[in-house]
């Protein structure tokens, strides 16, 4: 935690709190969701994946050329994989009767692939570090 980013922490905690406690009330489940989502905000700031600019305390994170490249590839992969999956089910609808777990939301699949692909690409360069 850095003192420069206190406005970031406070604003993200407020938004997360509003979303979690506003939707679920003051429950243990809401508190756990709050911790998980706020933890992700803190992790994103300190992960080293994005340049952080302390002169913009509310919006310190930006995407540099590498992060944009990562995002572009993840987006292409997510859209292509989702469309291919959809096409597969359109061409072979009988697959669903054999594999009912294939009946998943295409948008949800795309979102999962998008974030997983980004995570993979951000973690990949670390392997070469000496």
């Amino acid at each position: 935690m850095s003192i420069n980013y206190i406005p970031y922490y406070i604003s993200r905690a407020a938004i997360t709190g509003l979303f979690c406690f506003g939707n679920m009330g003051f429950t243990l489940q809401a508190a756990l969701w709050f911790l998980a989502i706020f933890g992700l905000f803190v992790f994103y700031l300190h992960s080293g994946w994005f340049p952080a600019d302390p002169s913009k305390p509310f919006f310190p994170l930006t995407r540099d050329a590498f992060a944009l490249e990562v995002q572009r590839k993840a987006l292409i992969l997510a859209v292509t994989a989702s469309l291919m999956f959809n096409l597969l089910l359109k061409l072979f609808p009988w697959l669903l009767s054999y594999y009912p777990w294939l009946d998943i939301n295409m948008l949800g699949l795309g979102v999962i692939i998008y974030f997983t692909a980004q995570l993979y690409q951000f973690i990949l360069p670390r392997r070469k570090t000496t």
Partner: protein
Amino acid sequence: MPHDQVSNSVREKRKNQGLTQDQLATLVGVSRVSIVAIEGGRFLPTIETALRISQALDADLHALFRLRGAKK
């Protein structure tokens, strides 16, 4: 993402200057992961980033990045 045609000596120059990847990233204005990717040859920086790295490491651009097989 790998760029086989271009090699670089950013890591050597950075270590010679006694800088960490974090410090170089801050000087250049990119993320630490970008520096890791550039040093590992997994990402070719933009002209602007390459020039900023050259400035931060006080090294000539041609000493940092060169085409494989090109004469020094």
